[in-house]
């Protein structure tokens, strides 16, 4: 390829605070239009904003988790433009002094590690939305301001990504972090985590960036990748033909997998930013930062390293288990009750994940088999009460009914048979019925041993203790 792509990402994360950033209205999604509004978020004359402290704390958390420095004197600015879903005619945001600056995240693509710079994270309010709904008798567009004034963090990366895969790796990492921090519900479809991508091409080997296009508001990881890939092709064609890429905002159309122009630069706004005189500067003393730091949860990277170092898990297991905070928590709760890290990992990655997947991708947080129940099951297996195979049957039953494993084992008579006398009788029976195979074994064909084990297990309906079966078979065959 003749061109090198340069990608920078701007991510808007909607914070999961209960109330809006500058008023006491609820931020709940999906309520009746304009039911969650007040004079402040409606931009009524005389109303004044008052900052929600939790937003500042969430922003500090995000900054600490992405290795940023925290700005200790914060100023809110007004970004002025007219739009019907923007009640005050300006958006309250941060401009030259964002709360977090100079951070980074490390990503890994195909085994290669790379550091992506984070330019800034700033706090701002969201706008409302226009509804062009089919309402009988109404031709006009309607405005729903429930979302107006909900808190956002805008996380702006450096233009450090050089492939769509790197962009996706960075986004997923960021997504994972805000979810771990519990500051964003991460829902791409509802717009809680939305991304604008700045994409440009330059000749391979060049250090001068080309003209960029801004791809707006794409609501899935898959579409972001598609949009960037399409944009690379589109810009490459223009450059190949000797043309010039124009700086513009483009929208991605998921139906065609293409992007189209939204507006040219000539219509670009002059936002006339200036410090909002209604909000006093927010001063963040060291102590406040330290208090917030104390609430910082263990982040995926640290968790993964700990699983490998302390629990002895393979890298692969650790990576899978920390992919979400909830999954990691489920795993850790189980390990706390049944301290065999690898066995638990096998079960969580195996049976638990499979059952949830098959159950409509149910969330781990409402898995009917709780960590306590899973630990009980594993204990039964460890004690030899049930075999590993029976355990899987019991698990399925637990998932369906939510019952305790002891109860299921008891009700269904699944207790493992370790009684030597009973097993011995079955062994004798099998040997008697298969004289040919006995002959083979004694003739040196030891692989037949497995056949005998299988036969005995079948005779016991899986309940025979395999260790006892093995022991007795060996004894009898070698006799």
């Amino acid at each position, binding site marked *: 390829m003749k061109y090198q792509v340069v990608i920078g990402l701007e991510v808007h994360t909607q914070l999961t605070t209960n109330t809006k950033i500058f008023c006491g209205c609820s931020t709940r999604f999906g309520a009746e239009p304009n039911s969650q509004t007040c*004079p402040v978020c*409606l*931009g*009524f*004359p*005389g*109303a*004044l*904003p*008052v*900052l929600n402290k939790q937003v500042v704390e969430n922003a500090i958390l995000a900054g600490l988790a992405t290795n940023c420095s925290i700005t200790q004197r914060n100023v809110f600015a*007004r970004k*002025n433009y*007219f739009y*019907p879903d923007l*009640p*005050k*005619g*300006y958006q309250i945001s941060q401009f030259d002094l964002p709360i977090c600056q100079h951070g980074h995240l490390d990503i890994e693509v195909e085994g290669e590690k790379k550091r992506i710079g984070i330019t800034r994270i700033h706090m701002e309010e969201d706008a409302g939305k226009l509804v062009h709904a089919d309402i009988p008798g109404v031709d006009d567009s309607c*405005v729903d301001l429930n979302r107006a004034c909900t808190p956002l963090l805008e996380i702006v990366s450096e233009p450090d990504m050089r492939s769509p895969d790197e962009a996706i790796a960075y986004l997923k990492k960021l997504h994972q972090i805000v979810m771990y921090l519990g500051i964003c519900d991460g829902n791409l479809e509802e717009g809680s985590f939305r991304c604008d991508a700045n994409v440009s091409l330059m000749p391979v080997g060049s250090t001068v960036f080309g003209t960029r296009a801004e791809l707006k508001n794409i609501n899935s990881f898959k579409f972001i990748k598609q949009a960037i890939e399409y944009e690379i092709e589109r810009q490459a064609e223009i450059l190949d033909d000797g043309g010039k890429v124009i700086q513009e905002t483009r929208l991605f159309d998921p139906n065609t997998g293409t992007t189209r122009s939204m507006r040219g630069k000539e219509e670009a706004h*002059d936002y*006339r*930013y*200036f410090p909002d*005189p*209604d*909000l*006093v500067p927010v001063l963040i003393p060291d102590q406040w930062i330290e208090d917030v730091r104390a609430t910082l949860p263990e982040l995926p990277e640290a968790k993964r390293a700990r699983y490998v170092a302390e629990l002895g898990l393979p890298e692969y297991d650790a990576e899978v288990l920390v992919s979400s905070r909830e999954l990691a928590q489920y795993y850790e709760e189980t390990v706390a009750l049944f301290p065999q890290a690898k066995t638990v990992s096998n079960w969580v990655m195996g049976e638990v994940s499979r059952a949830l997947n098959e159950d409509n991708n149910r969330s781990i947080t409402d898995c009917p088999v709780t960590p306590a129940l899973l630990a009980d099951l594993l204990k039964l297996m460890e004690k030899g009460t049930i075999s590993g195979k029976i355990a899987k049957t019991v698990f399925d039953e637990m998932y369906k009914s939510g019952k305790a494993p002891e109860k299921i084992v008891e009700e269904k008579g699944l207790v493992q048979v370790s009684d030597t006398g009973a097993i011995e009788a079955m062994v004798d029976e099998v040997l008697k019925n298969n004289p040919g195979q006995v002959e083979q074994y004694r003739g040196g064909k030891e692989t037949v041993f497995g056949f005998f084990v299988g036969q005995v297990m079948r005779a016991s309906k899986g309940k025979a203790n395999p260790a006892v079966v093995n022991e007795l078979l060996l004894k009898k065959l070698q006799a």
Partner: protein
Amino acid sequence: MEIFDLTIHELHEKLAAKEVSSVEATRAMLERIEAVDGQVNAYITVTPEQALVEAEAADRRIAAGDVAPLTGIPVGLKDIFITKGVRTTCGSRILENFVPPYDGTAVAKLKEQGAVIVGKLNQDEFAMGSSNESSYFGPVKNPWNLECTPGGSSGGSAAAIAARTATATLGTDTGGSIRQPASHCSCVGLKPTYGRVSRYGVIAYASSLDQVGPLTRDVTDAALLLGAVAGHDPKDSTSVNTPVPDYVAGLAAGVKGLKIGLPKQYFIEGLDPDVKRAMDEAIALYKSLGAELREVSLPHTEYAVATYYLIATAEASSNLARYDGVRFGHRAEDARGLKEMFAKTRAEGFGPEVKRRIMLGTYALSSGYYDAYYVKAQKVRTLIMQDFLNAFNEVDVLLTPIAPTPPFKIGEKLADPLQMYLSDIFTIPVNLAGTCGISIPAGFSAAGLPIGLQLIGKPFGEASILSTAYAFERETQWHLKKAPL
């Protein structure tokens, strides 16, 4: 003496002693409005039914022995104060029919005390003006001379005091909008320190300069009314959390040994001779009362008007963006598409002075000019604040004129906005510095027009300027003179 002539504290005594009821006082006030407001045009909206309901409630409260200083007192509010269920226009066509769904903090505080709100007072459109000629509801006439302006922008609030159509009123002061009309109408007008009174529920003109304050017949009433509305408000993050002193109790402190500064930049050539004479008399009086007078310097005064018009218009251009016809107020008919709806609505809804200031402010904030204008103005503002702090290291209060001239004729300065802007030259620096100032009656011109005197205090030094003003008021009779109406 008629009921409508009484001050707050005089009426309060009669109410408490049950010599008069709030309903009687309110009726008297409504009748007075009926009788004379046609000539003055101080009111945009009179609310007789609601006022009588409030007066009855106040009378029940008084009967139960619960009498706060403002219980049952008929007050008027500049139409910049948001009032739940009562039309609030801000003097503009764009809000001609706007009925707010909430009460602002100052209004809520008055209602809690049981004050009776008789109506909403005329003002310059969005508080932009020094003569009350920019109101969509027509100019207010000065009760001392109906051909003259009452000053602005709280011209209706000042004129209502002078016309005896409200016992007391609230106004707002962004560049002198309480003090200058108080001076022109011979009443007491106080601009508190920025942050002393909540701005929640006050329609913003220039957020970093606007401040709510009382207009009253005398200094005692100013102290009472300020005490009623001052204090921290969690709904306004710029309101300051410092205790509110008992302003009335501090009035009699006297001026013996008080150091009064005379800023040399305020006593310049070209000051109207009548104004100059009133100042000289005031200075002599304070000397005789034992105050120590000395010249001080506020070296950046000459830049105040230019600085003010950059900062105020910049903030206004943004504050007024919400009047777009989408959610409330006037919306242009027959506009095709969004942009046309915004543009037509604003073109029809705003008057020429508001448009002029929005354009000035938009220009000052636009890219390429921001540093040269807005940022530079903020730097000068800091210097002006520093001037005041330096002066207050030497003296306790400052004494200055309020306006370079007595009230001027309606229409006289309309054609020359720059000349008009200069009429606030002595009041604007106080807003830029964020400190407090009071205007008190200090005499009359040869033509019989009022002249006011300004006392400027340290930040949160309201008690000090009130007691200084009270000492003057006790020795003079200016505040007792009545407009010939």
